[in-house]
């Protein structure tokens, strides 16, 4: 039955060819370090799912943000789990993305013909940091507030455009409701849009170019 349905769908979509290209492609003999990219992808999916669930209750309003986070954590069934996964998943993302990059550097996997994969990867690294930075403010507690003060002051020391950069990030001179709503907008709309586009390109390139083998002595 399942095979029949699969055949019916395959005749109309050719999904088996896509499945083969993605999951059954030929790869060289490799080691566990090569799973770091997939692990990052997996952590990203967890972040997307739990993040969407959090938006069902979270409100980016200076009067209510903290109360809504507290409601999620302390009162909703499994709210602690959903928020906890998102919280720790964020750290896991940064960790995995850095380890993934270290593997690529160590094995020289950024070389021809994979330079463009590397470039999209660097963009994805910065994107991951941006997610972490914007998401950190959203619980709207003391730690969130002061982390954003420090973070935006780091941006302020940028030569020439520093002051403007900080004002644009904060939506004014000080952290306010405007900061909260624009960090929220960035965190749930702007960054995810760019992320999905870049991840799509990144994975397409990995599949198209194949993955590198572990370098041998003298390579």
């Amino acid at each position, binding site marked *: 039955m399942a095979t029949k349905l699969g055949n019916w769908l395959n005749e109309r979509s050719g999904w088996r060819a896509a499945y083969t290209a993605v999951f059954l492609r030929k790869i060289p003999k490799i080691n566990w370090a090569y799973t770091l990219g997939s692990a990052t992808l997996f952590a990203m999916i967890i972040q997307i799912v739990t993040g969407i669930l959090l938006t069902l209750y979270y409100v980016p309003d200076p009067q209510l943000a903290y109360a809504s986070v507290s409601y999620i954590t302390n009162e909703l069934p499994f709210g602690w*789990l959903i928020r906890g996964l998102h919280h720790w998943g964020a750290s896991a993302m940064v960790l995995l993305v850095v380890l993934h990059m270290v593997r690529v550097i160590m094995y020289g996997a950024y070389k021809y013909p994979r330079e463009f994969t590397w470039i999209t990867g660097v963009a994805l690294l910065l994107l991951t940091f941006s997610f972490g930075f914007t998401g950190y403010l959203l619980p709207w507690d003391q730690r969130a507030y002061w982390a954003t003060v420090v973070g935006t002051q780091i941006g302020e020391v940028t030569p020439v455009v520093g002051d403007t950069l900080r004002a644009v990030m904060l939506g004014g001179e000080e952290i306010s409701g405007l900061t909260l709503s624009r960090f929220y907008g960035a965190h749930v709309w702007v960054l995810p849009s760019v992320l999905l586009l870049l991840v799509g390109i990144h994975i397409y390139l990995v599949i198209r170019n194949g993955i590198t083998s572990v370098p041998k002595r003298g390579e």
Partner: protein
Amino acid sequence: MAEESSRPNGSDEPSAAEAKPKAGDDPDNGVSRRKLLITGVGVMSGAIAATVGVPAIFYVAGPAQEAGGEQDWIRIGSASSIETGTQTLMKATVERRAGYLTTTEELSVFVSTENGADFVALSNICTHLGCRVRWVDEQDGFFCPCHNAIFGPDGAVLQGPPPRPLDRFDTKVEDGQIFVRKI
């Protein structure tokens, strides 16, 4: 079709007897290493999806379950302040919680008693369009200024467009205090 025949479906692979046994393939067993791994990955993915998915159902349904036992007794005032045979307007502030938001609402109730022991509590909201009614002694009834409706002392419609009598509340007296509850 040539491309398809290379897919890892057990039945499509050459029979174990013809194929040269490769590392990891057990020629005596129908389950190939590949099939085992694919199944394993599938089972683990399903388990992970359930770990997030099942709690998510409770998480999404959370506030709907809270809404249940909401009709609590509300204290509206002292029983001794009500004179027999008169209508006394009593007010209470009701707190309503919806998740992290608490809103307050004014509840106004006409309370009367014939014998000082049994109390009748009527809402002061007209059942026609929600205007506030007031007690008018000359008419011995509640008067709604919006469409000149009149309700009797028991809440029954005497005149005008209201479709049903004034809403009644359950009442009880504890330690000299009157409590009302929505029916």
